[in-house]
């Protein structure tokens, strides 16, 4: 992975988030406090703004800086979680140093694991992890099977979408919606939605490179 790809990905994420303002906002209004879109937008815009600072960095340093920047910019629940993701990812990229699909999959899985530890949450709790964990598994499996980038991207987009949609049927046991009990059922988790959008944006970018 080149730092330039990270920057393009950040732009793609930014655009996708901003294109889904209404949806993200109303999801968090329904079962949260309505700020998820604003939080994500603030984070995404900040990363776009510091492009010049990121450009000269190595990919791992850029990812780590993105994590730190998100940590001090987003706030809320999504801030420390997404920050942990990028910092977790950066560690693996730094260690492995190569540009193999296996490394990317391992880095992604490490990022998801960092979220899991920070949030003390797991699959089925109606959070972003319901998108991220299945995607990490699928990514790891496909990479191990030496699948092609295109195939992986198409598959991860679908997995993310399934995970996102599946949150609709769940009761939340973590995050703000955990107070809702049965009333959370029928609503997609906002963090799951924004993660699905981000994965989709990056996969689309990857498969057109």
């Amino acid at each position, binding site marked *: 992975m080149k730092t330039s790809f990270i920057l393009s990905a950040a732009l793609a994420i930014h655009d996708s988030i901003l294109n889904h303002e209404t949806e993200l906002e109303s999801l968090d209004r329904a079962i949260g406090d309505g*700020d998820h879109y604003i939080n994500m937008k603030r984070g995404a815009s900040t990363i776009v703004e510091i492009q010049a600072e990121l450009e000269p960095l190595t990919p791992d340093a850029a990812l780590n800086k993105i994590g730190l920047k998100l940590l001090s910019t987003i706030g809320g*629940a999504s801030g*420390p979680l997404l920050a942990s993701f990028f910092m977790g990812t950066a560690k693996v990229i730094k260690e492995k140093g190569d540009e193999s699909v296996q490394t990317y999959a391992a880095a992604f899985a490490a990022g998801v694991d960092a979220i899991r530890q920070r949030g003390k949450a797991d699959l089925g709790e109606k959070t972003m992890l319901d998108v991220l964990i299945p995607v990490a598994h699928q990514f790891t499996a496909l990479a191990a099977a030496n699948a092609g980038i295109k195939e992986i991207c198409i598959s991860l987009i679908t997995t993310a979408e399934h995970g996102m949609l599946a949150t609709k049927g769940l009761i939340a046991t973590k995050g703000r919606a955990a107070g809702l009990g049965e009333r959370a059922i029928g609503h997609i988790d906002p963090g799951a939605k924004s993660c699905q959008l981000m994965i989709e944006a990056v996969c689309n970018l990857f498969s057109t490179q």
Partner: protein
Amino acid sequence: MKKFINKTDNILLESLSGFATAHSDLVSLNLDPIFLTRKQKATNKVAIISGGGSGHEPLHAGYIGYGMLDAACPGHVFTSPTPDQMLAATEAVHAGKGILFIVKNYAGDVMNFEMAAEMLPLANGLPIESATVLTSDDCAVMNSTYTTGRRGVAGTVIVEKCVGSLAETGADLPSCKALGDKVNSRTASMGVALTSCTVPAAGRPTFDIGDTELEMGVGIHGEPGRRREAMREADAIVKDVVNAILEALKPEQNSEALLLVNGFGATPLMELYLIYNTAAKLFSQHGIQISRSLVGNYTTALDMAGASITLCLLDDEIKQHWDSPVHTAALRWGK
């Protein structure tokens, strides 16, 4: 949305600047990162730092001052602050006896404060000690199947007041944390919304609610509560809230208690006192002796019309620390 604002992006900074100017005898405002501290740094005490999303004013900056907080870290509206704020506040106020973070139990707040605590700087070569009191007084959310625990709401003010008082005596960090945990465990709250709040950046109400509905157990960010109900007379509403609190606290007969009736921002004082009147009667019918009271806007939810009731079971220690002098923008007595 009609609000006294200029640009939504600037609302926080402009409001905090006004706060800091109006109370320039009491507080200082730091920018980049944003935090507020006492004007006069306290020495030789546990430093008490709180914080959370903005929109709950006077919580928390209004409670900075003698006998309460040393610093507050305000996040964006309804969004928890970020660790860099807590770290900078820590550097500014730590006074040799460690830091106590008072944090309302929300995933975002918990995680951001947790990350701050993990990153605390060294002081004199040793990492600054810290402890955290998580407030979780909102008994609207029943705790059975959920693992995140109850939310922290207006009871946080009582925790901050009592812990702040104890810290002023030079007590050590474990004692301060222990008192905070005790007050929290003896406190329960529940809120009712008649209207939604409107987050300025969103520009429209967080939830829709009909002219004849109320939201029972609403959160201080406009999160849905126990249930949507038909609007009823005040006595019936208050009765349900009081019963929920009694069920959560299961107080012994003749318990002494503090009763806090808290407005969410758009509820007239006249109605808050009317609620107080009914709540006080109901609690005393259940054998509870209300010996301390607080009525007003102490933990708000922007412009929400609604109110919460908080009961804190007193003992001699809590009573002493509640009564002790306090001098902050929003709570002041004995000084």
